[in-house]
């Protein structure tokens, strides 16, 4: 089965103004939301205590909330997840309630109440300064990953391509994080890890297009840069779409069957893969074009090399 019978000839680069408007709108909405309502940090970053309890019978979260409120935890958030037998309790950090003993205390209080304490499914606690540290380390990791990628692409291609790919990556990360802010999805450590995977994935797509552009710069010497880019994007289009589809397939499996723990992770990657696919077509190459890249940028280097260690052109049949 083939996605397209013949090679497509869509004028992607020609439509870059529409893409620009679309991207800027998404970025602006994301930034607006980030500055006005911020992110809904999970306890990995905000610090605090999270408990999951499971009971043999249905339990009332109202009763539990009242019990905890009257025992020194008025800020406890108690809710069901999954079924009425499963309870999720969150307790934010507050002076006096900021050490790992809070969870033990909560279990004790519930055990003494008529609800009981059920079975502990999981306990998470993150201390006051540690959450901030994790967040800072995470942001640093994102920055390092971007720098690493920039160096690699500059080395393998050229600085305009390097900037183009990094622009596309920043675009993807900001929009994904922006969507997390707009929909107030929980921003956790696995989500941050997924963002790094998004960088890897989106870059994968971009590199494949760049590689083809480089190849075509050599083959199609008469064609101008814009046209070469269009041809390259169209040539790689079936691959771009098919790989996104296989990746989305496994991510959907992960989203629906992987359980709560992997939900946010899978959601981040699903959003990231969609936006990454879009950006590798509509953001990366147009940025390179706007920076004024021409065939000579990539060819000069190769011509120099040719005489030395590449007697035969590797891509000409």
């Amino acid at each position: 089965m083939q996605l397209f019978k013949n090679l497509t000839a869509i004028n992607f680069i020609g439509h870059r103004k529409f893409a620009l408007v679309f991207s800027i709108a998404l970025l602006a909405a994301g930034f607006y939301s980030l500055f006005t309502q911020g992110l809904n940090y999970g306890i990995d970053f905000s610090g605090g205590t999270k408990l999951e309890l499971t009971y043999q019978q249905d339990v009332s979260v109202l009763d539990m909330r009242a019990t905890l409120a009257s025992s020194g935890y008025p800020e406890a958030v108690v809710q069901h997840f999954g079924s009425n037998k499963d309870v999720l309790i969150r307790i934010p950090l507050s002076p006096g309630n900021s050490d790992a003993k809070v969870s033990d205390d909560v279990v004790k209080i519930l055990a003494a109440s008529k609800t009981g304490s059920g079975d502990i499914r999981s306990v998470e606690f993150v201390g006051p300064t540690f959450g901030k540290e994790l967040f800072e380390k995470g942001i640093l990791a994102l920055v390092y990953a971007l720098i690493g990628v920039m160096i690699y692409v500059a080395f393998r291609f050229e600085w305009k391509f390097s900037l183009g790919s990094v622009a596309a990556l920043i675009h993807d990360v900001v929009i994904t994080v922006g969507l997390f802010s707009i929909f107030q999805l929980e921003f956790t450590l696995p989500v941050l890890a997924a963002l790094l995977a998004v960088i890897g994935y989106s870059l994968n797509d971009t590199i494949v297009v760049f590689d083809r552009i480089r190849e075509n710069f050599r083959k199609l010497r008469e064609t101008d840069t814009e046209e070469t880019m269009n041809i390259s994007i169209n040539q790689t289009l079936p691959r771009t779409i098919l790989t996104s589809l296989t990746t989305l397939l496994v991510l959907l499996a992960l989203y629906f069957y992987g359980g709560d723990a992997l939900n946010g992770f899978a959601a981040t990657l699903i959003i990231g893969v969609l936006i990454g696919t879009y950006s590798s077509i509509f953001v990366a190459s147009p940025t390179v074009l706007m920076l004024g890249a021409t065939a000579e940028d990539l060819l000069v280097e190769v011509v120099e090399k040719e005489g030395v260690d590449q007697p035969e052109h590797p891509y000409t049949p």
Partner: protein
Amino acid sequence: MNKNPTWKYLVLLLIVTFGVIYASPNLYQAEPGVQVIGLRNAVVDTNTLERTKRILETAGVEVKQITLEYGKIRVRLTSEEAQNTARDVLRNKLGNSFAVAAADLPTTPSWLESLGGAPMYLGLDLRGGVHFLMQVDMVAVERKANDNYYEDIRKLLREEGIRYSGINRQENGAIFLRFKTEELQEQANAAVTTANPELIATIRESDGSFTMELQLTESAISEIKKAALKKNMLALRNRIDQLGVSEPVIQQQGLDRIVVQLPGVKDPSVAKEILGKTATLQVHLVDEDNAASTVTGRVPSGSKRFYYRDGRPILLQKRILFSGDNIVDASVSIDESGGPAVSITLDSKGANVNSDVTGDNIGNRMAVVYVETLGETKTDSQGNTRLVTKEIREVITAPVIRDQLGKRFIINGLDGRNEAKDLALLLRAGSLAAPVFIIEERTVGPSLGADNIEKGFTSVLYGFLLVLLFMVVFYRVFGLVASFALVLNLVIIVAVLSLLQATLTLPGVAGMVLTVGMAVDANVLIFERIREEIQAGAAPQMSIHRGYENAFSTIIDANLTTLIAALVLFNFGTGPIQGFAITLSIGIVTSMVTAIFVSRILINLFYGGRRLDSLSI
């Protein structure tokens, strides 16, 4: 064209054999068992083995196999019920010197084991257990070191007969001394720096007053901190052994943190209570001479006012006779009136001091002070909350010395049997050199762990089947080949993870799922290239050849950049996230091998070396 040289088949055979052998230990399910290890100086030997056998026989526990290896007894049992019985009965009968832990023992056949085969090492989020990240309070370590020097310097100058006109502690921990003459200043400088080369002395003269400031060198401070961390890890190890946990992980992280992982521990509160406690004992003499100022009034410089648990004050001499560090054994017992007590055995240094002091002070009182460091939350003016340490010192008993004491004695006055039990355990395991705080806890109950395994497995399976179906629909024979490469890729990932004994976490499983989706990318790239060549009018054999050749550098570029992101992730990662980075990295590398090398061999096998009119792609 497109024929395989024989060496390629050999390499393929090698890859498949490697994958199958090292992945296969995962097919053998672990079986319930218990493990016995010796604590402190107790050695597990054939005697212990015989005792263990007898105890289990008497208790009527059916034993599958019992072995003594690497100083550990491993008992394999038939059911979880037998595991619980065996653990409880062994804990009761073997005594304090041995720790008994329930453990799930691998059933890898010995021929596989001899090749280094072992099942994957599951992270706590999959097997259940407790993870703590502990922060060692290095500020307290530095303060304590400075405190010690303060006392040492005073003692030294007194012994040397060098008079100073003032001594105090600076804000930064430095010791500040004042002398009347330059000569005294010089003498002191010489004496102090010879005795303590790790101190830097700064001498000054102003307004006829001669001063000396003493500070620990940077390297001395970092040595002290390193030693404190080491001692803390040792103490934690001892305490965990006392708790009876199989395969605990105690690891240093950075300069001032310790990771503790306790697989299989279901109740984190007990572990928290025992691990974080810095409780120890200090023994002082009661200041009987100044008893008049016990409640109010000026406290003489050599003494300090302490309080009983009920708030009654008592005046004790500042000098510590001996402390928890001098205790080599402690166990729960009962005193004459039947109350809970801890019986203590001292080391020789402690025993000497104890017998000297008690011999000289018959009729006086000796106080046992319980010292515990607690973490407390403070909120500063900017609204930042942070933990600070607070020391609690309570006099638990101050009996009259009736006889000269020696190596052994009993402490009573405790609040119940549980406290006696905990205190005995902590004294046995050794005190922490510095307070520790849990800054991160992740506990996963056994049911959630099993759930996570099942869900992770299900999503790998479904993701995998969907991709296989997709590939076969889109690329027919070539899709089948890609599917085989994908299966082999998964087997190799499992084999490499098993061989490296890298921790497989739930995000790690997610990494596997993601790899499945992304691994076929290389094949998609190649197959699309082949289609392009066919459309451009190339002959089938030539299309295959060029397809593989032209896609090669693209695949390498695309995968290497993803690998960069994965490696950054690994460096940043805490436990579970690192698991994701590991499987992703391994997956990227193995997928390049299977998608390029292995798939080519198979395609050549199908199509190579014959005349073709068309390709099934």
